[in-house]
């Protein structure tokens, strides 16, 4: 009914009940253990521009082969110019985002201003590493405008390693997205010099990239949330993706 038993158990039970393979005396007692992690799938990515940043996340929520929800966000706006996007396990994402919001509110009470994007980025790293030995199963992107008004994108691993980079993608479709971004934004493997993309082209490219990921990755699809962060603040919109 619910498939959350530890792997391998079914096989062992099968062997015992059929009696064909007697259990060796030296076998340790079989241990049942709850697996606290699951991957709910989804793709998030972000690209930094000179005076803006673009971030995207799909809204599909999967569990195993089932789609639980087609419209569940992976993004939380943390300040007036900073958004965090998270792939991986949804329950951990909810927890992490809630905790980040609490910490940022505390920062605002203490300093009477909102934290800068790089302060938020460092904070997230600290939070993740704090749970180094029972990590949040989350793959994060922090995106926003830094104190100079430049687009800032930070990529993380699950335990808090992070770096500021021009573009990053995370989640089940990360490999698909990265290769296109490497080519189109990083301009790798190009024989001739290419002009950098302007803002509109970049947003269009981002939409194409998530749509492409939705075509090939079964855990990515339904809708994509598009965040464009510039001097006017955080602008959010939504695009349709493949629904199967």
């Amino acid at each position, binding site marked *: 009914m619910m498939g959350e038993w530890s792997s391998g158990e079914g096989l062992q039970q099968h062997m015992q009940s059929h009696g064909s393979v007697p259990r060796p005396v030296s076998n340790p007692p079989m241990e049942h253990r709850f697996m606290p992690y699951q991957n709910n799938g989804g793709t998030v990515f972000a690209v930094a521009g000179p005076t803006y940043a673009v971030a995207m996340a799909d809204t599909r929520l999967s569990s195993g082969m089932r789609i639980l929800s087609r419209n569940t966000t992976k993004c939380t706006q943390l300040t007036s110019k900073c958004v965090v996007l998270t792939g991986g396990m949804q329950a951990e994402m909810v927890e992490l985002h*809630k*905790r980040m*919001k*609490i910490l940022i*509110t*505390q920062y605002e*009470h203490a300093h009477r201003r909102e934290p800068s994007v790089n302060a938020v980025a460092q904070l997230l790293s600290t939070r993740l590493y704090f749970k180094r030995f029972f990590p949040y199963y989350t793959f994060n992107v922090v995106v926003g405008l830094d104190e100079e008004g430049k687009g800032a994108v930070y990529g993380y691993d699950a335990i808090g390693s992070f770096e500021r980079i021009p573009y990053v993608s995370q989640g089940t479709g990360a490999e698909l997205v990265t290769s296109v971004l490497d080519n189109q934004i990083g301009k790798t493997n190009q024989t001739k010099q290419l002009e950098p993309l302007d803002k509109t082209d970049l947003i269009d490219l981002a939409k194409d990239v998530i749509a492409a990921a939705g075509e090939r990755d079964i855990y990515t699809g339904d809708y994509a949330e598009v965040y464009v962060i510039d001097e006017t603040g955080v602008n959010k919109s939504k695009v349709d993706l493949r629904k199967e």
Partner: protein
Amino acid sequence: MYRNLYDTDPTTWSPQGRIHQIEYAMEAVKQGTCVVGLRSKTHVVLGALKKAQTQMSSHQQKLYKVDDHVGFAASGLTADARVLASYMRTQCQQEKYEFDEALPVGRLVADVGDRSQANTQRMGKRPYGVGLLVAGSDMTGPHLFETCPSGNYFEYEAMALGSRCQSAKTYLEKHFKTFKEVSVDDLIMHALKALKKASETADDEITAESVDIAIVGAEQKFKILSNEELQVYLDRLASEVTAAEGGEAPMDTT
């Protein structure tokens, strides 16, 4: 010489059935500068007179934001107010974490009341020496509460605390029946006029530096007005006063 034998700690009753330590703490509230709070159908406004300890120091903080939907004005010991601010912020964050919802103002005030009361019943503790006017907005509308060092709390339409608050109270008592229907701007004006009454008795002028105003409502996050925003209302106040005095030029206050 008379010496009170029954006032050294809050766990000792006097034979008259009084706890002097609590009463002294209630007196401390009256030592602070005047703060006022008033409520309309949609908003609550807090106002405070600020003092600078010396000419060289900055003005003390009288208004505290607790959360997007609630804040308070304090009169009495500022240090105690800061402790309570931190406690109330914690409570609000806890509620947000757990229930994804703003903590109802009445419950927050009840929490403060319980905490204050605990200090009045323990050996070696002292009551908080601060009174708060808590303003907030929740699913049951806008609210204005007063909390006391004793642990008591009351809900009001309008209230004033602190030194020389009586003249502000008199002003509020005269006008509070009209507050329900007035606009936010007018509510702020009423707050400034009440504060003006209190400051006049001390021969002080109210300026953008010596006054703080905060507003909160269903659609309005708790916000302390900036000096520029405040100046607009102070100018309006000055012109209304001038008009009332028969159109004469404003008094030279240099």
